[in-house]
């Protein structure tokens, strides 16, 4: 052989596609100018991810926008075969008729995963989206979502992520119940949402926004929950219901393994009439992370206690005490801990992290409780928000007094 043989062009198409998917889309498409064999090797890629890096940068936004639109339209026209994944994440595109056309094209080409993260604007999702019945993953950001009346849900959808979407609560509820295979649900940036979630296969739930009321109606398979709950100033609405929110929300999730709550989540759970005991035991729950817990509110502390004591396999506990006080309550010193949980044991608890501790009675009692009931406790890490050195010293002294059931337990005191 006189010339060096081509090293790579004759590898099987599956390998070449494997290589091309590891390149940025722009680089992958540029291979079309390498040689005649390479001209259309990229065109059967099934996963297309677009962002503004696909086109040359420019200080002029309008130029980037136009170029990006041309690029995407060009790619779709030259593409051959089905497109399974289409990701578009760019703040440069907001509301353009081109996006409608791309979605129409995708709906005819078997789209399975659609991620549309647009810039802030009011892009209204076209109706062709609701005919993409093969969808397994849908992620929308900054859009308006208005399903037609004939829409019955996506029967194959496994993952739904809606961020800052303009949509009616009924539409969300019916969308969720119309997706029987749904496993991952994320709703963020919503205002005053009242939601009842019925999703028999749901495993991961992520909520972030201003929710007025959430009811996990039918979510028996939930494994992980993360809620960041913002609340209205006027909390009078909450006091109406007599149902204990803790039960309403966490009463039907026996398989729960991880629970994370931010902002007012604990407060939300504490609202309602406390029935005394929880209906279920969370035997799989290993991690609890509750932030912004207001220890001055006895009800919130009660929620915390109930959760901890109903989780026999709890391994890691992270609590952040919050200075947020909706209702400045009188500090009740109550002997809740001693009264109900005297002989209690947390058999698997290994790590406890308490942050933003300010040394109030309930906080200290809680730590004392934990240290007295966890035989395999390894570390209690306390971070304080106190600025006053003396007050800090007092707290440390107090903490050191507490009896420890676990011989290995260390009390670590960190400064903010």
């Amino acid at each position, binding site marked *: 052989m006189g*010339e*060096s*043989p*081509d*090293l*790579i*062009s004759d*590898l*099987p198409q*599956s*390998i070449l596609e*494997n*290589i*091309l998917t*590891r*390149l*940025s889309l722009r*680089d992958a*498409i*540029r*291979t*079309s*100018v*390498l*040689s*005649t*064999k*390479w*001209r259309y090797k990229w065109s059967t890629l099934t996963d297309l991810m677009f962002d503004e890096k696909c086109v040359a940068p420019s200080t002029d936004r309008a130029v980037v926008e136009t*170029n990006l639109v*041309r*690029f995407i339209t*060009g*790619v779709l026209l*030259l593409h051959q075969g089905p497109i399974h994944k289409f990701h578009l994440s760019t703040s440069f595109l907001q509301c353009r008729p081109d996006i409608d056309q791309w979605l129409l094209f995708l709906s005819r080409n078997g789209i399975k995963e659609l991620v549309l993260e647009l810039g802030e604007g009011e892009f209204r999702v076209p109706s062709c989206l609701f005919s993409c019945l093969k969808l397994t993953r849908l992620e929308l950001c900054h859009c308006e979502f208005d399903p037609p009346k004939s829409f019955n849900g996506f029967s194959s959808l496994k993952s739904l992520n809606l961020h800052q979407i303009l949509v009616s609560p009924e539409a969300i509820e019916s969308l969720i119940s119309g997706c029987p295979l749904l496993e991952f649900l994320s709703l963020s940036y919503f205002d005053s949402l009242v939601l009842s979630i019925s999703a028999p296969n749901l495993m991961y739930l992520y909520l972030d926004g201003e929710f007025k009321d959430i009811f996990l109606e039918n979510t028996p398979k939930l494994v992980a929950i993360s809620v960041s709950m913002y609340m209205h100033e006027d909390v009078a609405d909450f006091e109406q219901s007599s149902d204990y929110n803790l039960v309403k929300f966490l009463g039907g999730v026996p398989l729960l393994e991880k629970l994370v709550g931010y902002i007012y989540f604990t407060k939300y759970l504490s609202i309602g009439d406390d029935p005394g005991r929880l209906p279920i035991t969370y035997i799989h729950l290993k991690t609890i992370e509750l932030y912004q817990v207001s220890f001055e509110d006895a009800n919130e502390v009660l929620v915390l206690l109930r959760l901890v004591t109903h989780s026999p396999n709890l391994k890691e506990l992270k609590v952040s005490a919050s200075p947020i006080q909706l209702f400045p309550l009188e500090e009740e010193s109550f002997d809740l801990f001693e009264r109900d949980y005297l002989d209690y044991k947390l058999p698997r608890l290994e790590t406890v992290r308490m942050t933003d501790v300010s040394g109030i009675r309930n906080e200290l009692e809680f730590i004392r409780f934990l240290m007295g009931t966890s035989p395999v406790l390894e570390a209690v890490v306390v971070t304080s928000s106190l600025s006053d050195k003396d007050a800090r010293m007092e707290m440390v002294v107090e903490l050191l007094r507490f009896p420890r059931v676990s011989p290995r337990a260390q009390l670590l005191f960190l400064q903010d």
Partner: protein
Amino acid sequence: MSESDLDIMEPETMKSYIWLQTADGSVQQVEQEVAMFCPMICQEIIHKGAGSSKNHAISLPQRVNSAMFSLILDYCRFHQVPGRSNKERKVYDEKFMRMETKRLCELTSAADSLQLKPLVDLTSSALARIIEGKTPEEIRDIFHLPDDLTEEEKLEPLKNTMDDPRIRLLNRLYAKKRKELKERERLKNVEVEGHVDERSVDDLLSFINGTDPKVAKMSKGKKKYKKKKNQKIISSNDKESHDLHFKQQGVEETGSRMRDLLSLEDEIFTPKAGCEDGDIDDEIDPAMKEMLDREVEDFARRLNSNWAQSLGQERRPVHFSINGNNGTTRRHIGQSSGHN
């Protein structure tokens, strides 16, 4: 269960070996657990019971030569040990990937044929890293790719060709040329069909000659048409006259109304559909007009010479003006000449 299967399942006091034969013929023994790391070999052993002896060595696929196989075995030998940490494996992989590109490509191919997906992914990532961010020339250089795309093809894929002024000019020129060619084709085709032609010319002729137009037959042959025309009007020696002249003849015969007719012709034959380039049309129409003018003159010349011949004496040039006389004269001549 075959004997070899039983051998595999017995607790190991001695290591068992599998016999394998690479594409280039060499036969080797490999520790069983190492060889079984490759799904393809695994299947051969389990489903076909091969590899238990030298005579029944498993034949490896064609893309696996001994050099590649030894590399793959090293990989398998390291990774099949269960106790290694993820970090260890990663470090090994990175070291392992340091080889020249040619070997990397061969290794990918070999690993793929043995269905060893983790190694395929590893090599694919390495190759992707090589391609990433490089210019086409650099990539062609590394992988010895032939530079066999035309200039135009190279520009085609997603680059916006409309922006380059040279490309734009080229496109305009091509478009112009294409139009011209189309025009000529159309003219030719129209005459062969004789459709539009007939009606327009007949109408015009009748208008001029004051007679009803004969029902024009759908003549396919230009000769037929010509004959009819000639009998009616004028003798023509234009047997040889080509398609282009044909239609123009009809027009020319009517003499001074030519200009009007020409413009009518233009209307009929000029593409009515919106043209992108107004310029191009303007250029062709005058060109066509020019052509027609030339044909007219030619015809006139020929006509004159014919007359002279047929009459034998008169050498009066024929004036192409519309008046009854001329018309009659022509008819007369047409009948007597017996041309065609």
